[in-house]
């Protein structure tokens, strides 16, 4: 039997698969194309404490911080710093590998003892500030 006689030429399933594939490829290319034209905002990193998501155990406060990239472009090696207000106290730094445009990443910083700010309404403990130190362009 020759190769041509035995050929697996496209018939029903192949044509349906090709049609679905064409739709998938068009959707993917279309989405990427439209997004490429529409989105060019540089990374804008915002870090906010989330008091209700934190907890305290064995004298250590685990402070939840949501780090959000409000820009369109991705950022890498995003550095977040948590430091006490005023003088003194230990500065905590943490690093997020990648933050795509629109992505939010939740991190936890362990701080000895109770904390107050950024936990509004909590009068006990130290007042903390959450800062975005910087990032690398991806």
């Amino acid at each position, binding site marked *: 039997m*020759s*190769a*041509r*006689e*035995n*050929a*697996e*030429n*496209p*018939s*029903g*399933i*192949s*044509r349906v*698969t*090709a049609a*679905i*594939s*064409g739709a*998938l*490829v068009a959707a*993917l*290319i279309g*989405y*990427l*194309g439209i*997004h*490429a034209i529409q*989105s060019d905002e540089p990374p804008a990193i915002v870090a906010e404490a989330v008091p209700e998501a934190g907890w305290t155990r064995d004298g250590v406060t685990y402070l939840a911080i949501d780090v959000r990239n409000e820009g369109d*472009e*991705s950022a*890498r090696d995003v550095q977040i710093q948590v430091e006490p207000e005023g003088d003194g106290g230990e500065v905590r730094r943490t690093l997020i*590998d*990648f933050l*795509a*445009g*629109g*992505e939010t990443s939740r991190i936890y910083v362990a701080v000895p003892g109770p904390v107050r700010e950024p936990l509004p309404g909590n009068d006990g403990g130290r007042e903390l500030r959450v800062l975005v130190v910087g990032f690398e362009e*991806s």
Partner: protein
Amino acid sequence: MSGTRYPDRDCVLRAFAGALLGALPLLYTMEMWWHGRTFSDGWILALYVPTVGVVLLCLLFGGFRLGVSGHLGIDLLITLGIGIFASVVTLLVVGQIAPGFVPLSAAVRMVAIEAIPCAIGAALAVTQLRPRQRNKNHMDRRIVRLPEDAQKVLATIVGGVFFAFNIAPTEEVWMMTIEAEPYHFPLIVLFSVAVSYGIVFLADFAERPEGFDQGALGTPLAETFVSYLISLVISLGFLYAFRHVSASTPLHAQVQAAVMLGYVTTIGGSAGRVLIAE
């Protein structure tokens, strides 16, 4: 149930299997997810231009159908679609894309970049998963209709791209380049060329087809050295594509990184030339 009763269904399943077998290591590679999250949409779209060319070459080299098929356009669409499907399903199943886990735009880019090696794997399904029939007539290897020199060059490109893709996205290539001493690079060049020569001409994997000793690449040394140079160019292309190097990278560092990745690429190219000779 015999697989030959539904050849049209079987070839689609074969393409899906080829996509997974060819790209599974990359679907599990962290750097590929990172590239998907950090590369711009425009950059990933640009990567699809050479991808279409490579997938077409892979279809000419082996494809996913048995026998002779003359519908390259349909096969190209099927291959790309199956690549996207395999990428979406795997990333969903392993939990790398999920609502709330990554934004939709990043998830689409992750799927898009992972779909590239999946599509290449699908287009090389028959080559990866040798069918039970050992009759060569069952292989739709349209590349063999080209002149011998062109066959060797294209087989080097197909094999080189297939192998290099498994290494190029990772950080190791650049890390190894930085950590290597200057004397390592000429040694890597010599070893790459020697291994390439050994695989194709000494290891006796396949008889060289008639006419393979003709043309500009008719001698083993010419074939080996030209294929090595092609492998270096492919390697440099991958280094640029995955942004390990840029135009601002010193030339010597670009060459060193190409030599480092070229070791992998040239072995893949040699495998491609062995397979074309089968």
